[in-house]
């Protein structure tokens, strides 16, 4: 089989992993090839709009596991391929020198045993780091069920190591991935957390959950991810809208992947990590799922309208963050500028604060953007929905072309 054929098969089977970030590592070029960029660099964007930063491949798509949702499961009749460590190094090095990529993302199906597969991964990364003196970014997937000493060895070579939790509850996992268990995955997370240092998985760990393959609510999903953030100090949890690649009586048949739902989960994830929200603020057992029409922050603001409108020139940084349309960047600019002068609507525009949403929730120097009497639930809700739908219309037109 040619290298090109192998690359086709092994990139195709790796593409469902959402993680492609290359940020968070300060690895320097130590008289070899490459370095990491702390802010991360996107090298290209594929036609699905996702960033391509790393050479994302599997070492092999052969697998002894039979996870129902996975294209590479043992019972599927797909073409199988295997890269040798040397082949992976050659492609990585040559892509890197041409500035196609920021580094390598290496995952693998499980061949023979978890430990055997893990050893193969270690062999590859060692070759890359020691023989080719590669100092670029490397993200590897740890193999569930592999021995602890192998995890430690692999972790000392890479910038990010991660294991996918795949589904939000153990029951779903049992149903769809009978060879995986949650504690195999969390054991990996625990080891990474305990050993994390400048020289061990310095960019931290991440994980991924499939959305819409099982019937958990958004609340279940957010509870799981918050749990992971708190317990194992994860950098990111990725949500991946389920795309049916296999037919199975345990799997739902969807026409379109639930992209909007995925988007809402990411928004909520951000709110919790960077905006000091708690799950209870966004969801509860009466409303266990996000509103598809309205983003979670606007939704929260509407339900807490008594906290608004907020005076831009007075409220604290943390309160600024609660205003729909204002994020950390805008909030910081507001705080640093209002020390020197009083902000009006025009000044906010100059700062680059997007007022599309924010204008309904703020006062600038005591003034609402239109007459004060319009500040009420119905007016704001209708206008927020309207603005979203204008966007949607434009999108639909673009897609129909």
């Amino acid at each position, binding site marked *: 089989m040619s290298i090109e054929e192998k*690359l086709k098969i092994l990139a195709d089977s790796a593409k469902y992993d959402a993680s492609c970030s290359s940020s968070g590592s300060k690895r320097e070029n130590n008289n070899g090839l490459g370095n990491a960029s702390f802010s991360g660099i996107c090298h290209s964007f594929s036609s699905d709009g996702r960033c391509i930063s790393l050479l994302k491949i599997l070492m092999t798509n052969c697998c002894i596991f039979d996870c129902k949702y996975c294209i590479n499961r043992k019972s599927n009749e797909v073409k199988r391929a295997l890269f040798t460590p040397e082949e992976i190094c050659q492609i990585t090095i040559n892509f890197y020198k041409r500035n196609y990529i920021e580094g390598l993302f290496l995952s693998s199906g499980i061949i023979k045993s978890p430990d055997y597969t893990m050893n193969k991964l270690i062999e590859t990364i060692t070759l890359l780091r020691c023989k080719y003196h590669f100092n670029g970014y490397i993200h590897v997937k740890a193999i569930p069920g592999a021995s602890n000493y192998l995890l430690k060895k692999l972790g000392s070579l890479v910038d990010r190591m991660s294991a996918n939790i795949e589904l939000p509850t153990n029951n779903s996992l049992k149903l769809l991935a009978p060879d995986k268990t949650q504690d195999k995955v969390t054991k990996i997370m625990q080891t990474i957390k305990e050993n994390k240092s400048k020289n061990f998985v310095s960019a931290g760990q991440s994980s991924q959950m499939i959305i819409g393959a099982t019937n958990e609510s958004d609340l279940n999903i957010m509870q799981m991810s918050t749990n992971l953030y708190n317990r194992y100090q994860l950098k990111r949890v990725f949500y991946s809208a389920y795309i049916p690649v296999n037919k199975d009586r345990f799997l739902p048949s969807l026409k379109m992947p639930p992209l909007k739902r995925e988007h809402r989960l990411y928004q909520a994830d951000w709110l919790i990590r960077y905006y000091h929200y708690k799950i209870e603020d966004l969801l509860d057992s009466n409303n266990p799922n996000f509103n598809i029409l309205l983003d979670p922050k606007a939704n929260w603001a509407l339900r807490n309208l008594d906290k608004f409108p907020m005076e831009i020139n007075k409220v604290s940084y943390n309160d600024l963050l609660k205003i729909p349309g204002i994020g950390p960047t805008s909030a910081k600019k507001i705080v640093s500028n209002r020390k*020197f002068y009083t902000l009006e609507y025009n000044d906010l525009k100059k*700062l680059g604060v997007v007022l599309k949403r924010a204008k309904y929730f703020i006062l600038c120097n005591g003034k609402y953007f239109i007459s004060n009497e319009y500040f009420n639930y119905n007016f704001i809700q209708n206008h927020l929905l309207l603005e979203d739908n204008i966007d949607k219309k434009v999108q639909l037109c673009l897609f129909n072309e």
Partner: protein
Amino acid sequence: MNNFDVYLYDGSFNNLLNTIEILIKEKIRPIKIVSEECLENDLFSNIKKKTLSRNSIFLKKLQNISKEFFKIVYDVYLSDKQNKELIMYYFILNGLKYGSKIIYLRKLKCVNEALNVSNYVRREAHKLKGFVRFRKLETNFYLAYISPTNNVLGYLANHFKNRLANESWMIYDLKRDLLCIYTKNKYIIITVKDLEKNDFKFSSDELEFANLWQTFYKTIAIKERKNERCRMNMMPKKYWPYMIEMSDEIEKSY
């Protein structure tokens, strides 16, 4: 003071700062400062040159306002913005007046403009760190063509001198005829005229890896999630001609 005066500088950063220094000293509010290259024939304007022997005290003075302030001044100089010289003039004038807090005074038009332009330049520099595509030559040099909106070659040179420290490489800015050559831990940026593309022969394995990259690029996209608008936002079309993986797409769209 004559409102039709146009002040001329030779295009270099130092000469421009020099001109601005004298204008500030002589309390002249210019309506136009322009580089020799961009000078258009204009019957009504009175062209003047204001330079004195090179003087680094002014430069030090600007650097002392704050590091970030000086960086922003330089970013504006690198930009393709029309009237960037005037933005710099007023930004510097106010910087000397207000000191380091100047970068928070967005209420002033010149500050707002300078900060926006600086951001615009930095954003492009960051994007290009990813979008630059090298091709390997017979001589083992790696060569990339770029044609950025702003003059970000310096930013790129600093990035790649660390990243590809043990390689030899060149980045050629086609728009400005600037060539950055790096070899043995040093880079220089020179002006070249009529550097023919055909002068370079690719190494024997260049085609193989370019093909592999195109294969990878096509394979990694998930067709169920197709989103052309998002791709275009993140990777504007003006960069496509220099990106190997986009060559098929460009053919499609013309």
